[in-house]
């Protein structure tokens, strides 16, 4: 297994939005989904997930509802709201252009300056 990466500051929100954009999930499910997509290369502090969830919910980007889990237990499921969808799109674009810029800077060779 590859070495796990520490999450960049501020990216957890984006990952959560992405995870719930694929379908309703409870907190633990979000954690699993992120780890699954990243092929276990990201280290997420489990406790830090919930304050982030509450913050996103308070901001109106995700909504929550109580439902039943795979093994018939009561669990709180999060879904992406319309505002959240817009937010995710904006963040994705932002991230991509930022990544391009950074990659461009880091890839610069001395003769190109």
């Amino acid at each position, binding site marked *: 297994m590859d070495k796990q990466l520490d999450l960049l500051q501020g990216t957890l929100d984006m990952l959560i939005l992405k995870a719930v954009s694929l379908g309703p999930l*409870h*907190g*633990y499910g979000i954690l699993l989904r992120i780890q699954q997509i990243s092929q276990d290369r990201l280290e997420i*502090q*489990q*406790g*830090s997930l*919930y*304050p*982030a969830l*509450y*913050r996103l*919910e*308070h*901001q*109106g980007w995700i909504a929550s509802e109580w439902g039943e*889990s795979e*093994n018939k*237990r*009561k*669990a*709180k499921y999060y879904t992406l709201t319309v*505002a959240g969808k817009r937010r995710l799109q904006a963040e994705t674009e932002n991230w991509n252009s930022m990544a391009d810029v950074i990659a461009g800077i880091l890839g610069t060779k001395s003769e190109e300056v």
Partner: protein
Amino acid sequence: MTLWSRLRTWSQAILQRSRMESEMDSELRFHIEARAEHLMRGGMPREEAMRRARVEFGGVERVKEEGREARGVSFLDELLQDLRYGQRVLRKSPGFAVVAVLTLALGIGATTAIFSVVNAVLLRPLAIRDSSRVVPLQEQWRGSGVDVSVGNFNDIKTQSSSYTEISCSHDASFNLQTQDIPERVDGAIVTFNYFATFGVPPIAGRVFTPEEDTPGHAPVVVLGERFWRTILHADPAIIGKPIRINGLPTVVVGVMPKSFDPLLSNSNIWIPAAFTPAQLAEHDDHYLDVMARLKPGIAMAQAQSELEIIALRLQKQYPLDDADRSFRLQALASALLGDQRLSLRLMLAAVGFLLLIACANIANLQLARSRTRQKEIALRAALGASPNRIVRQLLVENIVLGLAGGGVGVLLAYWAVSWIVAHGPAEMPRLDQSRIDASTLAFACGVALLSSFLFGLAPALRSASTRLNEVFKSASSIVGGNRDRVRSLLVVAEVALALMLLVGAGLLIRSALLVSHVDPGFDTSNVVVGRIGLPDSGYHDPAVARQTFERMITAASALPGVSSAAVVSRAPLAGGGSSNGLLAEGRALDLANLVNSQLQIISPSYLSTARVPLKAGRDFTPQDTRERTFVAIINETLARTMWPGENAIGKRFACCESGPKGRYDPVWHEVVGVAADIRAQGLDREAQPAFYIPIAQMPPASWDWIGRTMDLVVRTRGSEVPLRELQSTVASIAPEVPIYRLSSMKQKISSTLERSHFDTYLLAIFAGTALLLSSVGIYGVLSYIVAQRTRDIGIRMALGASQGQIVWGVLGFAVRLAGIGLTVGIAGALLGTRLLSSLLYGVRSTDAITFAAASLLLLLVALIAGYLPARRATRVDPIVALRYE
């Protein structure tokens, strides 16, 4: 973030706190259990899996706390904590809490009470549509605003184009016969468009038509709702019915709502003016209140410049009447309430000072406490409370105090407002509408919060900036030099404010005392006065009117206990009256030579009945009739003004009517007597030029000037006042004619003083409270300083200082503080009391005696307040003091 979601989570936070908590609990539990199950599926034993899951998750409490914060719940949470904490702290020091709450309640209560009066009298909108467009119009004559003549009104009406409506009115009262006893009702005579000018429709019927406002039309009346409800018992079928007014059946055409009182004169009925052509041409008799509604888009300044053009035209057209006259528009509110503003603002300033003193006192108490609480606060800081949190906590504690004080203050205000409404001057319009309502409550709440910040912020900031190590390390007597200065400054400010209030109250009290000792110029004891107005119908003939009054005089004189009776067109202190321009014989007929003088038409027995001393010449006799030489008695002021340094007896002046050859044909009156000056306009008003002419010689037209209304003046032998007998005597001679405003002269005098006494009384109460509060402040600071310097005092005593020296040391400090405060206060008072000058009689606003007395009183109070702590200082045992701390 949307406002909505924020509100939703906040409201959830407040309403469903426990549900949110338990949901968070079960959500986190679900996570840990799901994780454990996940691990168990990998073959881990259950116990081990649960342990691993918890470790991986981290601190549950920390997550919950962060979760609450993320939801925006924590601020409220902390606020609630602070509130609980503040309440606990206050409950632990009940002495402080009670003193602080009571002090604050005094300040807030007084401020709220006065505010509710100001709100009712000045701030509440007038019941008029679009009142900013309604402008009163006055004549300007020799620098003062006077009423408008009918002729001028009519000319302005026809020549101006700035107004949608221009109407006029004058106050009048009417004899009304609904039951057995005739009554007198206050009302107004108005042009038909009067109601339209104010834009207020009737609640029943209609207002006057232009035809009803023409001479000769059958009498009609519009009633006020209050009158309709009380006197006519809200008769639903009143419209179209006649009621008897001034002896004539008068048809009711409409009823105006209770709130319709545009000139704040308590009018109950309105009668059309129906000016005759002769009246419309009359430019010399100025008695109309004119109200105009500006056309949309016309500014007051535009209308004013149009008036100036009209004034120039009228000055040329009527040089004798209008030469010195111009016209002025005013804002409605200032015209109606201008008189009330000064004294109400004064009261508001006074209670504001009181509130500031209260706040300074509490700030001082808090500063003293913050010292003893330093360790508690340092401990909280050491345990991790941020400076922000500490300031917030202390502020919240102060807000708890502020709101408690505000609550008690509102109770005080409630009581105070009902007292003010019951005892306030009757002439203050809308005073009876003062009450504690939503706006006053909001005001009280605002004042409470504002004052919590005022007295709480300084101590709180000071506490928060305290360095931890200093508190734990240093001996307390070294810290706090700076704090003493703040506390001293607060006391200086209190003394200064209290002095300003004391000086203000002192000036008013001195003025009231001087007024009460003024000699009115005649004998006011055992005199009863009542007014009688004869209606036009039945008494139109001047001879009939005069004979009716003469019969009343004869009948009243014959009543048991009555020594004499007389009539006068306007008794002293009855207000109003008419004045005429007098031209001394030998002077050119020019406006500048006219002496304006109050006219009194009297029966021959008047001067002897009222006991107005005759200084020279003779009194009138029944033989002074129109067939004989026209005579007059003038007062000393008029004699001095018209014939300075000469004997006035035998001199002649022209006035009041013109001879057969027209307006410029003078009718001469010979001065036969000079009477003493009397203070007819009020005890605090200097006597004005006045002259008397006998009832049997009065110009026939003057019956209309005085509205056939005379004051019956009766001198009794003892204290027994035959009011009932007077009523039935008048009714027996003139049925349907009431005698009204019937009271003794003493009562009339005290009611004219009511207003100034009320101001004086209130200000004295405020000043007394301020004195009390500032003495508490001085006492508090000195006690604190003595306690703090126990060690120094101990050392000085150990080194041989006598008790006297110690006492003087402490008192000296008190005197120094008071002295600085007094200096500042005197400077402030010198600036502030100038506003009072129009309310003062016989005292200048810089009266040295008042200033000295107020300063001495404050100094004395400061010494007394300082003496107790000083005594305590002398009882310091040097040994104990040196061991102190």
